[in-house]
């Protein structure tokens, strides 16, 4: 179980219709690769976030399959089209079944 998992995302507050914006996301997570050993030489079991998705008003922007080579505190930067006022939903899926979500609204003016 990963403790203190805290997602952070950066989304502009406003955009013009059809504008391409840059989104940045960071989530604190140890991303235990399953390769490390503890002090007694026992393998520490794998515990990572294995999937990240970003949707805007139910339409998919990006869907990332994550594997152990992704660093601790996974960071993603990507671009999205904003067709209308709405909300970005960011979702992270943990190996242990936990799901972390973050919602950010954006206004098209």
């Amino acid at each position, binding site marked *: 179980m990963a403790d203190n998992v805290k997602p952070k995302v950066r989304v502009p507050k406003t955009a013009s219709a059809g504008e*391409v*914006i*840059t989104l940045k996301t960071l989530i604190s997570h140890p991303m235990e*690769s*399953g*390769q*490390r*050993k503890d002090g007694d030489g026992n393998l520490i079991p794998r515990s990572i976030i294995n999937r990240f998705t970003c*949707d*805007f008003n139910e*339409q*998919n*922007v*990006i*869907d*990332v*399959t*994550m*594997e*152990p*080579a*992704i*660093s*601790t505190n*996974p*960071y*993603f*930067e*990507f*671009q*999205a*089209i904003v*067709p209308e006022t709405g909300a970005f939903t960011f979702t992270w899926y943990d190996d242990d079944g936990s799901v972390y979500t973050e919602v950010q609204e954006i206004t098209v003016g």
Partner: protein
Amino acid sequence: MKFTRRETMLMALGATAATMLPGRAMADVDAKVAEFTGGAEIGEGGLTLTAPEIAENGNTVPIEVSAPGAVSIMVLATGNPTPGAAVFNFGPLAGAQSASTRIRLAKTQNVMAVAKMADGSFVQVSQEVKVTIGGCGG
């Protein structure tokens, strides 16, 4: 001991070949690529992989992939015990077929990206990253 230019070149080649053949991991890489492409032929061009030439800390190496017109892009750390890094699938609202993230590299190795284009073709690109301190514990 003195080496001629030719001998020096041969030694360098030998050393490169030796570092590029870590048996099992390479087989994993091939399996990953085959799974992603379904055995289709892989071309080149149209895919950019941006990674540092030298990474001081293998625990967090910034990379960026970009392939205009791609449906998905797979990133592999070919020298890691488990080479898979990420697969980016772009949806209808993706503003550009590009993404940045940070990956772990166990040692100096080639980072590889394979993109699936909208027409079903595949392209690949790879770049060597020299790692001073490896990630992945170990």
